[in-house]
């Protein structure tokens, strides 16, 4: 278990920014009509926000760790 030194954090952020810019030129390898499995509700990282928030609270109130609990992304990619 290591904590993230400011240098590593900065490197990571730099990498993410580069990826963001590069996004302009890379071709997506998944066609929109191949996304039906990902669009399925069973593939949602968190299906019920009301329950997710509560469980995060249950653990955070009893554990020392906090942060980076949420998820996101995916879906049908429509529009």
């Amino acid at each position: 278990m290591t904590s993230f030194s400011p240098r590593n954090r900065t490197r990571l952020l730099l990498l993410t920014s580069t990826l963001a810019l590069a996004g302009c030129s890379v071709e997506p390898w998944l066609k929109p009509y191949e996304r039906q499995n990902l669009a399925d509700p069973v593939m949602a990282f968190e299906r019920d926000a009301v329950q997710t928030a509560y469980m995060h609270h249950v653990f955070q109130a009893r554990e020392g760790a906090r942060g980076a609990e949420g998820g996101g992304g995916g879906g049908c990619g429509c529009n």
Partner: protein
Amino acid sequence: MARKVAVVVAVAVTNQSARTLLALLAGLVLLHGRAVAGVLPEERSDVMYHSYQGGGMDITGPSVLVRKNFLEKVSVSANYYVDNVSAASVDVESYASPYTEERKEASVGVDYLHNKTTMSLGHTTSEESDYDAKTTFFGISQDFFGDLTTISLGYALGDDEVRRNNYQQGSLLSSDPVGTVDRQNYRLSLSQVLTKNLIASLGFETITDEGFLNNPYRQVRYLSDSGVGTQSEVYPNTRTSDAAALRAMYYLPWRASLRGEFRSFADTWGIEARSMELRYVHPWNDKLSLEFKLRQYEQTAADFYSDLFPRQDAQNFLARDKELATFSNWTAGVGGSYTWSYPGSAVEQLKLSLFVDHMEFDYDDFRDIPSGRELGTGDGNEPFYSFSADVFRLFLTITY
């Protein structure tokens, strides 16, 4: 041996830092729970009954969440949550008496969608007799690479007031402010579609707290000439923590999903932790869906934590909060939901869900004083504490 018996209420047992984040939790998950940048979150309302039973605690209450979308551009949500606490936990039984408390929390949030960008704003307030927390949250989420990548950024600002309740013969005399806490959260997450059946997500969160971070009631104990003495906890007035998590979800060919998560944590108090979770969702048919979950967590103690200090004022900072101790826990959960569909009508779907989790906590350096008293083990030789708890969630979801 002198024993302190005082009528202490409410937050005696709850980790202060955890409570400073309770308001934030709602803000970050409820309002921004699903950072799908190109589409607004689904409209729905949930009414939930939650119950936590274990470790001498009985915490139940409702949680109501309502979300409505407008003009295909804006999504508004609101949540009302209550914790009704009845506690006779190990901390309470060590140095205090059983109590009841109520915590109320309310949040509102707005998401605005423009092309592939979603911007979010939210506010949460949490109130109980000796703690008020306010949090404001900003977030932005963007789709890239033909919607295969989503990057989200979040920032939250928190402002808490910590008070100490004074009781006399069971009734509350006054609630005196003892300090404030300023919180800031920085969040970055990247979600990537890898194959048509696999999606992964990387998340980072840095949290800084500044102010009165300990519990105004809790005592630490130390060895003294006359046996064991107690003194107030002394915490540093800052805390910075970093957490990183990797999640992946895989679509199984018979229509089911497997979700894995690994999370790592470290902070300036010396706590290091990691958690792992596996979840399996199995739709049985059109109406019934089942879920199974396994989670394991472990952490090492904060630098200034000790169950029993060698003498009074042994260190600059002193803590005996079991949430800062060395411990591990595991959780096993089962859940199911049943859906009724009414396509074309005002209420499209009605879903009833029940989730039950069982968790076991085992501490390596926090001793169970009440058990020690019963067994007559003597100070410093009490058995290490462990407890189990059951958590229930029963909720009705309406989709419209």
